[in-house]
């Protein structure tokens, strides 16, 4: 698609993207207790990429996702599998949830569950997929 640069859109997008990014991380983190989760969070991040694309083209998307979208997809899948393997090793069953808690100075008790690792994998994979789709489907072929 031929995208003409529009200062109005660019300015709007510049203010929108950080908000969208924050919202997407929020959705990822609260997913276990409130509506949200890795999939929805990833889609919101995908929206951020989309508006970047509309405003700045492929270069805009590539500027936000510093690494190759294929690698993000792969990393996401690897994280999800890794969460499963942790379950296999720690709990004796593939994908079984296990939680590690420890206390850090100044911050307090921290609980990290493999559920979050798994969800993070889903999140990254969705971002990678959306980025791939935008870049390839939007590429100007004529």
């Amino acid at each position, binding site marked *: *698609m031929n995208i003409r640069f529009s200062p109005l859109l660019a300015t709007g997008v510049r203010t929108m993207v950080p908000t969208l990014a924050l919202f997407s991380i929020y959705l990822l983190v609260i*997913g*276990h*207790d*409130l*509506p*949200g*989760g*890795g*999939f*929805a969070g990833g*889609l*919101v991040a*995908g*929206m951020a990429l*989309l508006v970047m694309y509309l405003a700045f083209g492929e270069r805009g998307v590539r500027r936000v996702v510093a690494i190759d*979208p*294929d690698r993000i*997809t*792969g990393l*996401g*899948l690897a994280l*999800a*599998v890794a969460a*499963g393997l942790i379950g296999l090793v720690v709990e004796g069953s*593939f*994908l079984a*949830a296990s*939680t590690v808690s420890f206390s850090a100075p100044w911050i307090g008790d921290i609980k990290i*569950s493999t*559920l979050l690792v*798994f*969800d993070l*994998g*889903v999140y990254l*994979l*969705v971002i*990678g*997929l*959306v980025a*791939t*789709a*935008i870049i*390839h*489907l*939007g*590429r100007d*072929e*004529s």
Partner: protein
Amino acid sequence: MIILLPLALYFVAALLIPSVGRRAPKLVGPLAVTPYIIQLGAVAWIASNGDVARVAQLEWVPSLGIVIGLAADPINLMLTTLVAGIGLLIVVYSAAYFSDPAKKARFIALVLAFTGGMAGIVASNELLGLFVFWEVTTVVSYLLIGFNDEDEKSRSAALQAILVTASGGLAMLAGFVLLAQAAGTTSIPDIVAAPPTGTGVTAALLLIFVGALSKSAQVPFHFWLPGAMAAPTPASAFLHSATMVNAGVVLLLFLAPGFATTTVWIVVVTTAGLATMVVGALGAMQQTDLKLLLAYGTVSQLGFMTALIGLGHTGAALAVLVSHALFKAALFLVVGVIDKGTGTREIPSLSGLGRTAPGLATTAGLAALSMAGVIPLLGFVAKEAAFDVLIASADWYALGVIGAASALTVSYTARFWFGAFTTKVGVEPIERAPVGLGMTAPPTILAVLSLALGLFPKGLGSLTSSAVGEVTKLVLWPGLKPALAVSAAVLVAGSGLFVLQRRLERTPNRRLIPQWPFSTATSWYLASLRTLNTTAERTTGIVQNGSLPVYVAVIVTTVVSIPAVVWLAGADGLPELRITNGPAEVILAVVAIAGAVAATRAQRRMAAALLLGVVGYAVSGIYIVFGAPDLALTQVLIETLTIALFALVLAKLPRRFGADPRSLSRPIRIGVSILVGAVIAGAAALANTGIPDRTVAEAYIELAPEAGGRNVVNIILTNFRALDTLGEITVLAAAAVGIAALVGARSRNREREDAR
């Protein structure tokens, strides 16, 4: 542990070597020989310790009772020694053979992986474990035969080898399953101790024969082996003397105690073996390429072993196997030295090598004498033992055929040695570059072993006897017995044939030997390959005609009609359906229906996409009404993104819908739509009417906080049904790859065209 560990080491070393080769090429050699030395040490240790556990088991799929079982009985130890010993020499030789460090590391890693597979086969005592190792050798042999992957011929030879041996392997797996069903166990010792009988077992044996005979290049599967000579010579020396092709013979050896007396065994195995022995020897006699000559000779010798096993003479077969492995590996390695030094393996170009390389000629001479069966080499001792049992059991036909084929063997052996080393009239003596000790020592060791074991065969005889469980006498001087007369007659006839063939070849276009046994089999193979390809092409043409509406129609019709049929078949009368719960739903439903109907009427693509979005947003509203914010959130997000992506794609398409001749007619499309709509609406109404059994749902709600959070939907996705989610995101990842590959390939092609 002592049985499992060396086996595992091969694979570990194979995985490590490519990266080690890049960083520290000097470490490749020491790392590569370690597993062999450890395995040989382990064999010696087990053999000398009476109280070591003789079996090891690895649970693989416990729920199906599938185990990988390994044994250290005399036959396993003997074959393991052969595989590891020759493997060690091959690795040393390969290190000198390849000069490019990257190629060297890749090759040695493959040899190690292959040795692991082969050592697994010869140590297996469970059918399914054996099958796994069998397939390891099949796959790795593909990589070894096609090692020179820039050469088209070498790739097609590798493909041919894997097609023949892997389809044989599949037949064999089916045979294994049938046999295990009939016997009630997959343990080979248990099966042969109480062999099952019946038609099913006969079928099983026939299927197993297909696997064993194809792996060992027996008629009618013999044609792949000469092609496999495209492999680098060290690979041929290993695969086609001591390992890969022996696998079929080894399997038959394992099964012989239980089944060698059945009719199907005697008839099929013996016939295949005898035919192969003759066909292979005839093939070898007409070769001018030294390596090909040896390859056909291998086919023939494997036929010899197979025929002996078919008649139940397992001891003699094992002795022939050992003697063949030693002399054939030595000869292949000698050919490698000649090829490397002179740049050719063609008999007509080689002249004067006996003078310039007397040591090599002696090594080759010893091995060749063993191949011909001349006293005092091991080949003579083994052949003598075979003749002896054939006479004792009065197998006169077999003796006749084997005797005749042995005469041919003598003839092609003479052709090999004289062809390679003598000085030919009218041919310039060939220049020869020196090769290192790493390449000359291994064949020398093997040749000397052929001589030493021939001079002192008693130890090998007692090993063979305990391996097959029957007395097998191996002696240097058998005394003036009929068997000796047969050996003598074979030598005389073979020498006569050699002289006769030489004379005939002086006159052009006169051939002693027919060509058809190999050319016919190869043309059958090619014809079946062609049939397979055309069938696949035609099927694809019908199933995938390129019209997206057809694909979608097929998919959605299948998806809705199968559950609908199943449900209707099981339901007793239609339940009372509850259609709606309140006015909010009705309003949203009207919006959705209006959007859907308008989308079908839209003339412009973009309008249709937007109208579909209307449907999606209305449905997400219904989710809200039902109290499912997670679903609603996801639906809204997906809907928005989909419209945006549609916009990106539609910008490249014509604005209006066009007529596609391949597509479905309007009535069919309407029919499919109504069917899908009706089934989905029915399912939704059914769900709305009430799920009778809520135990699962309630258990999810109850367990969710304990499982990690209060949002049941998310906990189901990431915990309760995490495997489903993993499957789904794998599909997403595949979709991403698909987009990148399909669309990316298009733009890459375009760039290439632009560049022209």
